[in-house]
């Protein structure tokens, strides 16, 4: 009897620990305070937050396109397996409406051991450029973060889940993900 109780407790603990660890790995991050200040300054803000369930729901609307080519189907398959998509797009009426320190603050979260910088492009003299961070697990890309800072536009794209770099540009234009940022990320990553 006691042995059963012990095994039940071990099993319950295992389930709880597994759930907590899964949440920690796949959960979308809470918005950074910097995003709030950027939103206050921006003339136009777009926020898209999709977790795994929402992505599964959204991908169902893509199933009807039976005439789509193989590449489209591969992109849809990739979307179906994603764990989360987080997009923030800020448009400003004046140039340089954000600082280098703010960009640094946004990048900070991804400067951990799980994430590796892939692209680090800067424009001399101004706080503009493109950063791409990837999360590699057992040699497979399990996450991508793109920070694209243009003169009057700032885009943050975080994609969690298995990603095929060749299909990356196919995600652009879906779920508020800027096409240009994805094309740029794919081009830079392919170098």
């Amino acid at each position, binding site marked *: 009897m006691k042995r059963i109780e012990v095994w039940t407790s071990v099993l319950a603990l295992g389930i709880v620990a597994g759930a907590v660890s899964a949440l920690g790995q796949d959960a979308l991050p809470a918005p950074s305070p910097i995003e709030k200040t950027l*939103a206050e300054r921006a*003339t136009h*803000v777009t*926020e*898209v937050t*999709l977790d795994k369930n929402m992505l599964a729901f959204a991908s*169902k*609307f893509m199933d009807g396109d039976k005439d789509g080519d193989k590449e489209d189907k591969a992109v849809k398959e990739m979307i179906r397996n994603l764990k989360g998509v987080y997009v923030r797009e800020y448009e400003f009426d004046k140039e340089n409406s954000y600082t280098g320190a703010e960009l640094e603050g946004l990048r900070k979260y991804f400067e951990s051991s799980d994430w590796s910088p892939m692209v680090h492009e800067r424009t001399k003299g101004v706080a503009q450029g493109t950063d791409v961070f990837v999360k590699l697990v057992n040699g497979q890309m399990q996450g991508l973060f793109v920070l694209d800072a243009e003169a009057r536009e700032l885009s943050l794209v975080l994609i969690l889940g298995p990603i095929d770099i060749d299909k990356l540009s196919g995600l652009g234009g879906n779920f508020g993900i800027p096409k240009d940022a994805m094309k740029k990320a794919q081009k830079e990553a392919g170098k």
Partner: protein
Amino acid sequence: MRRTEKNATAWSMVLVPLGIAAIMTPAIMLAASGSGQGFDSVVNSIESRYHAHATKIPFMGLISGIAGIATHGGVRGLHVAEFEDFRGDGDGVDGAEFNALIEKHVGGGWQRMVRETSRKGGEQSLIYVRAEGSHVGMLVVDLDGHDLNVVQMSMNPDQLMHEVAKHHHHETHDSSDDQAAGESE
């Protein structure tokens, strides 16, 4: 033996109410996040905060029923409220406050998928979704200039896409028939 029976009775007194509570909790949660919140709550909160009056579309229940039949259950539970000449606080709405108001009244189970906002307050779009069994509930709050619309519906994505595909197939079939008839003439 008697002691074992007493123990069993005591355990059943604890486990039975616990079991009932466990079974009832999802039902209570579902009821709490039902029609009392979502659409009605959001519309009422906008009406009272901005002193505006929503125009409800007449025979919406009938329209919703027809939509359900026409799409074979693809779309149901349609609710629409329209605020004409919506002025907000006179010069639009504060995006952050508007978002917080909707967030507060939308109720449990709803997750915000999209938010689009402009600083001057003329454009606000909020899209919420929630799981409703085989269906997905969608609540859209859209302010464009002085037109504010609140729409809620429940969709079955599989059924809806099946209907769309069927319609698309018919259309393609008809156009190829027309083309063939034109060529024979």
